[in-house]
Each structure stands twice: as structure tokens, then as C-alpha cells.
């Protein structure tokens, strides 16, 4: 790995990716190295699960992710529904959500929503809750996420009451589920750009 001549030119569609996501050449290189590290079987794709055991496959190599309570949700965010593999371009596109927002960015109406805008970041967080991707966080889904985050540390009753209060506070149209707009409204005061951004050091 150390002595191979790696440049952005070796990465397919590098220029397009850079334009689309806003990552610089150096960042794309870094992410490519990381992708290759995770891709243990060298097939150019990361796989979701290892069929026989149903354990997370390539992302399982990241130890810290294994102990993140919502680790599994984060991994599935990389894979489109029904897909079991993700290539480098999609990998980078998802990670682009976490690029710090460009403050001075001005765009005309014709341009597409940048990957790292607040809305996209919010959508990513929403996906963590909304596992079945139906656009609403149901009570069951909320309970599931809460259970993952808290484990056995709280009782079932406490969990139910937490979920109840959260839904009551956020659910404005009283349909017992939180839609994306309601989610966004409840998080108006939060500095999303800061909380959901990862800065590259070099």
C-alpha cells in the first residue's frame, strides 16, 4: 500500500465525484484508501452482510462502529433499499452529507441541492429513525431506536414513557407518527451544520 503509485487518476469518475460532493482531490484519495481498506475481498464493492452468518460484513471491520448503538442503522444507510453492495461512488456520496456546510455558497435555482446541506444532514438523521423508509417515524420504530441506544439500562415502562413524550412533543398532526417536516420543525433550534459535520485535517 505504501509504495503503490496512487493518484486521483486511478479512481474512476474522480472528477465528477469531486464536483458533485465538493470533496477535494486529497480527500477523495483518503476516502478511497479507506474504502480499499474496508473492501477486504478486493472486489470494488462493500457488502452488507455475510450471507451464512448474517453478520455485518465489510463494515464490521470498524471496531468502534460495532459498539455504536445505532451502528447497524448507519451501515444500512449506505445501501439503497434492496441493494446489498455499495461501490465507491455511492460510499463517497453518503459521506458527503457530513462535509461541513459552505457558508458562502450561493446557488441559483437550477443547481441541485448540495450533498452537505442542512436538509440532507437532517434526512440522514431521519433515516436513522425511519428504518423502513416510509417517510414516517412510527412509535414502534422510535421504540426500537431508543432500545438500541439505552440497552438494558432502562425499564420497558421508562422506555414507553420516553417514546410517548417524544411523539407528543413532535407530532403536530396527531397521526401518531413523526413525518420529516415535523422532525425538521422540532429541530429548528439545533445547529445541525455543526453537529453533523466532520472536518478533514488535511
Amino acid at each position, binding site marked *: 500500500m505504501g509504495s503503490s503509485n496512487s493518484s486521483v487518476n486511478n479512481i474512476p469518475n474522480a472528477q465528477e465525484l469531486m464536483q458533485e460532493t465538493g470533496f477535494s482531490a486529497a480527500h477523495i484519495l483518503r476516502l478511497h484508501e479507506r474504502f480499499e481498506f474496508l473492501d477486504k475481498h478486493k472486489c470494488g464493492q462493500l457488502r452488507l452482510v455475510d450471507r451464512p452468518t448474517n453478520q455485518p460484513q465489510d463494515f464490521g471491520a470498524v471496531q468502534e462502529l460495532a459498539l455504536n*448503538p445505532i451502528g447497524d442503522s448507519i451501515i444500512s444507510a449506505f445501501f439503497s433499499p434492496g441493494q446489498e453492495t455499495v461501490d465507491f461512488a455511492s460510499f463517497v456520496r453518503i459521506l458527503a452529507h457530513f462535509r461541513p456546510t459552505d457558508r458562502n455558497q450561493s446557488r441559483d435555482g437550477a443547481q441541485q441541492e448540495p450533498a452537505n446541506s442542512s436538509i440532507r444532514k437532517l434526512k440522514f438523521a431521519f433515516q*436513522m429513525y425511519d428504518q423502513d423508509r416510509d417517510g414516517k417515524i412510527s412509535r414502534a420504530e422510535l421504540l426500537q431506536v431508543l432500545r438500541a441506544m439505552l*440497552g438494558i439500562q432502562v425499564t420497558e415502562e421508562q422506555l414507553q414513557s420516553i417514546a410517548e413524550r417524544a411523539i407528543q412533543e413532535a407530532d403536530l398532526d396527531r397521526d401518531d407518527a413523526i413525518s420529516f417536516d415535523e422532525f425538521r420543525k422540532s429541530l429548528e433550534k439545533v445547529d445541525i451544520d455543526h453537529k453533523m*459535520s466532520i472536518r478533514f485535517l488535511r
Partner: protein
Amino acid sequence: MEMGAKEKNQQLYKPYSSGIIAKEPPSSWQQEIQDLRGSASCLRSEPEFEMADIFYFCRRGVESIMDDEVTKCFSAQELESWNLLTRSNYNFRHISLRLTVLWGLGVLIRYGVLLPLRSEQHTGRICNRGSKIYHIWLTLKLKFFLSEKVHLMCYRICVRALTAIITYHNRENKPKNGGICVANHTTPIDVIILANDGCYSMVGQVHGGLMGMIQRAMVRSSPHIWFERSEVKDRHLVAKRLGDHVADKTKQPILIFPEGTCINNTSVMMFKKGSFEIGCTVYPVAIKYDPRFGDAFWNSSKFGMVNYLLRMMSSWAIVCSVWYLPPMNREEGEDAVQFANRVKAAIAAQGGLVDLIWDGGLKRAKVKDAFKEEQQKLYSKVLVGEQDQGDQSDNKLVEDENPKEDKSHQDSTEVQ
């Protein structure tokens, strides 16, 4: 060049802090969750949950996908400026003709001059040691005295063979008989470096073949502790043998690397508590290699032993500093794990290494569920408010981790 290197050794090593992304230190994450809420934290009777809490976990998760602490420890350290070894340059690209020419010259010198010289000395060493040990075995009376002399001489030859420039600090704290010497582990050469300055008893698994022969030869001259593969799994037997050895004050101090595996010399990983349970004096030693002259880290999943030795003998030099730290004993009310962490912190502080809580065994195994539980505990404590904040420290994490590791993974000088 040696003189220059010796001078440079006097400088303190910079602690390794670079990664590819900026991360928050873990101790402040509770603060972060509070910030997310915005309001002042007052004690509530009911746990309060905010939808925004998920942001923290999202970010940590994606951060770890981009770059995580554990895998960083098991790959060679990156240098700020290139030392003309392609092996330590990740983004190898053509910068200028002059640099390429310099590099070419470097290759010629290293492979054409340094390597042959060193390998000649290396083979000479093995024959030398073999014959000397045979002689020792015959003259039993002078056995211990001579064996010490021979031992030191052999290791000095090894050191010359590798062109290792070692600076020992605080030699007054050198380990004494009846104690255990504990050091951070980067490479099998650590053994040679420490043994160059004193006689130690090694601990490890019995091997077959050439290694086994060397092990048997070593035992004839001084007491070492070699375990059978089956015995390694039995912790009590291991502890007993170690205990017996240290109880005998005429025997040399035992050398143990509690991390259990090679780490890349930028950080210190979790110490296995076995050696700290014995209850004798522990002499911590910090070893720090200068990465500019050659990367000493043995990535056992990438290179075998022969390949590794070749790389070692064809780098510029092996420059390192060894600090002998003052002896430590287990205090009242301290258990083995806390003691281990205290020693680890001292070694990390002296060597300028990052003190990590992770288990080196993660190189080969998966994270235990106990860690996940710990995360959940921390989060629930934030929700429920200030209750027993007290021991929410790394100690708890290490305690949950039960060192019933699979010993069959371990290499020779690694011990529980």
C-alpha cells in the same frame, strides 16, 4: 551519522496526534449531549429524551467509518516529512527529479552496503551464540557469571547487526531481581533492545523448529519461562510459574509485554491484567522508536518474520529511546486492572504515546458486547441526570473485558 542521531535523540518525541479527521475527545461527549439540549441541566424525575440526541451517535459512527483509532494502531505510522524510504510514504508521487535521484541513491546504499554488512554480522551472531552457550553448559560452576557476560555480548552483537542506536534514560531505575519488567510492544526487536542492557527472563510459548532450538539453548544458560501451548490457556498455572520465579531473588527479572501484540508505537493499548496480579514490584519501561530512520513496527498480518528482518536491516538505522521508569507497586485497595492502567498511563506519558483503552486483541477479534453496554450505560446516565457519575471512567470498560482470550493467537514473547 551515528553521532548526529545520538544528538537528535535528546529531543523529546512529539506525541502522535494526527489523523485524517478532526475528532472530539471522548471525555467531552457528555458535555456535547447537554449542549444539544440547549437548556441548563436540572435534575428531572423522569428521563428526558431529545430527538436531536441521535446526531451525536450519527456523527461518531460516520467518523469511525472514515477513520478509527484501532486500525490506526496496526498500520505503520505516517511521517510528516519523507525519509527516503518508499515503505513509509503513502502518497507516493513524483515530486521532483532531484528527490527521485536521492531516493535511488538511498536504495543503492541501503541494499548494496548496509544490508550485506548487517546480514554477515547476523549469521555470525547465531554461530557465535550457539558455540558460546554450548561451552557454558559444560562449565557449571561459572555458569551464572559467564552466562550473564555472554548474554550481554550476544545481544550487543545483535544490536550492531541491526545498527540500532539506543539511548537509555534513567538507568538507576533498571529492573532488579525478583521483579517484573513491563514494556510497550512494537516489534520483536524490543527484546533485543532491552536485553542489550541487562539480563531478563523471557516468557513465551514453546515453539518448534529453529525458534524452539534457540529457546532450549537459552534455557541452559539462564532461567526462562516457556509454556506449552496447552498450559497457556490455564491462567493459574501461568500465574504460579511467574510467581515462583519472582519469589526466587536470585533469578533475573521477568520481561513481559502486557499488550499481547505489536502496536505501531504511536499509542499504548490495554494491558492484560495477568502479570499485574502477581503482586510483586513492577518496573515499567517505555520504548520509543524514531520513525525517521526506519519503521520498526512489525505488522504480522502483512509481513512474515524473514521479510520483516530484511526490512529492518535495510532501513537507515533503528534509533530508539528507552526510559526506565521508577518501580511501582500495587497500592491498597487497588485491583489488578487499575494497577495495570496506572502503569500504562505512566509508560504512555513518558514515551509520548497516546494512552488507549482498546484491547490489542481487537487486531484479530471482534469488539465485545460489554463495550456496547458501557456506551448505553453512559447515555442512559445522561438522560436520567446526575446519579453515580463516580467511576464512569476507562477502568469500568477494562474490568468488563474478561481476559479469557484465545491464547492460541499469541506469539512468543507475549504473555497474559
